[in-house]
């Protein structure tokens, strides 16, 4: 036993060195949030202060960006899961296997083609004269082009699209664990398909849905490129605010305080979602 433990020390130490390096970086950055902005080329100066936190928490624009990041991420995650559930069900349950394989292929290619590619594509697709608006107007669904860019709708669409592969991958496991005979039992006892879906399938799927929600929510919170590109400065999420404070205002302590407040609210909101999820699961079962 002592020998095993000795050996694992050597096996793990390179990774641990790297881990300690990044934890040191986090710690140092968090530390700088308690100081004032330093002269160019330095990280921070002066004595300890809570000034940056006061600025982050008291300015209306900061509160707005924080709250809209949390709320929008939640809404986008819920919508994404709504889109992902049918995909996961078809992948797992389709009688013809090629259908499921085809969807998996589409997900894999999209997933691997990267975020920048997709952000750019949505930028062109969602323009006033883009394919989406062209389709909507020529089909007579809308009279005038809808403005998707530089507001939450375009940013939300692109983030949902980015989250979708993660959601489907996670849900596949949950759907696979469902026992179809329970649903069949409900049907044979006279429940309609819709009733069976909402009263039997969904409650059984609930734990999986909640795990997926927490995962995609945490990815959505970190969105940076999509609001930057499709929000055009009008839609800003926390990550964009941190970036601007680093590279526009060169105020590292302010950026650090923003990041600390962001992380704390992210963890609290994730904890809250998990807490509510457990309550719901208990109530349902």
């Amino acid at each position, binding site marked *: 036993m002592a020998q095993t433990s000795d050996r694992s020390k050597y096996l793990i130490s390179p990774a641990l060195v790297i881990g300690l390096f990044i934890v040191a970086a986090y710690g140092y950055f968090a530390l700088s949030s308690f100081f004032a902005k330093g002269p160019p080329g330095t990280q921070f100066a002066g004595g300890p202060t809570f000034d940056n936190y006061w600025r982050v928490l008291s300015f209306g624009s900061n509160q707005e960006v924080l709250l809209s990041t949390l709320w929008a991420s939640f809404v986008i995650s819920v919508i994404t899961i709504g889109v992902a559930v049918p995909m996961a069900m078809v992948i797992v349950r389709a009688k013809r296997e090629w259908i499921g394989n085809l969807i998996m292929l589409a997900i894999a290619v999209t997933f691997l083609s990267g975020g*920048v590619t997709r952000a750019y*594509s949505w930028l062109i697709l969602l323009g006033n004269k883009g394919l989406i608006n062209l389709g909507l107007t020529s089909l007579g669904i809308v009279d005038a082009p809808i403005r998707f860019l530089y507001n939450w709708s375009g940013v939300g669409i692109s983030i949902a699209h980015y989250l979708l592969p993660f959601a489907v991958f996670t849900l596949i496991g949950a759907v696979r664990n469902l026992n179809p005979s329970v649903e069949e039992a409900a*049907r044979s006892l006279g429940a309609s398909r819709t009733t069976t879906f909402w009263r039997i399938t969904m409650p059984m799927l609930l734990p999986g849905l909640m795990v997926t929600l927490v995962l995609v929510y945490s990815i959505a919170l970190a969105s*940076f490129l999509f609001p930057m590109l499709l929000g055009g400065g009008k839609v800003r999420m926390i990550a964009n605010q*941190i970036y601007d404070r680093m590279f526009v205002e060169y105020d590292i302590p302010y950026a650090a305080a923003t*990041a600390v407040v962001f992380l704390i609210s992210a963890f609290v909101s994730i904890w809250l979602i998990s807490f509510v999820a457990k309550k719901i699961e208990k109530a349902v079962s």
Partner: protein
Amino acid sequence: MFRRDFESKFGIAVTALATLATIFLLLPVLFVVLHSFSPTRYFQWPPQGFSLEWHQNFYNSELFMGAARNSFLMALIVTPLSLVIGIPASYALVRSQFRGKAIIQQIILSPLIIPGVVTGVSLLSLLSTMGVRIGLFGLCLGMLVFALPFSIRALSANLLGLDPRIEEAARNLGAGPVRTFFAIVLPQLKSGILAASVFVFVEALDNFSISVFLTNDSTKVLPVAAYQYIKDFDDPTVAAMATALIVMSVIIVAFLEKVMGFQKSLRL
């Protein structure tokens, strides 16, 4: 009889929704490929012909080719390193008990729960305080730090599915720990290694939130170059870059499918 009824009818609504979702998923990927062959600078429908101008533009651009060199160089350095460091680490984390294991695991995996932008600024902050100039070294270090947890997670998932008794049997038959590792463990880790390398490689090429902080003009990488180009120019050259990346990802998927079936290899 009843089962069939349940599946087929229930399937229609769900299948329709899944089809729409798949169209939504594929639309930007297919569209950007189409757009890269556009004869006009701006999007037009139906396309008025076919042009390779943007592809030529991309492959002749000093900005993009320099960025592609940096990106691939970085990905080719970071991917093997994340395996060489990640395989022993995940073996230790999965197979043995030692003091402080939980906290060590937390430390190593911490970039998984911290948003990329925060990891990026933190690294930039520490590196510049340490006097490390932002260059290829800082960029590779940053990407390694960020990608290692993903690699360890994929490898650990694979290791958890392996039966440790096979290793014990090898040891009992007289094989040393090194030989057991190379002859027994490593061959069984094939799918985890493949998944980890695909993920790290793609992440290294695509990551924006770390690299935007750790690059300068001489170490610009593809996503950062693309972002700057989109801001300054309004033409489909970035669509040509996207097409190249999509072709690469199709090749990767085909390769994974051939080696082991991608359903198995994409359990990340």
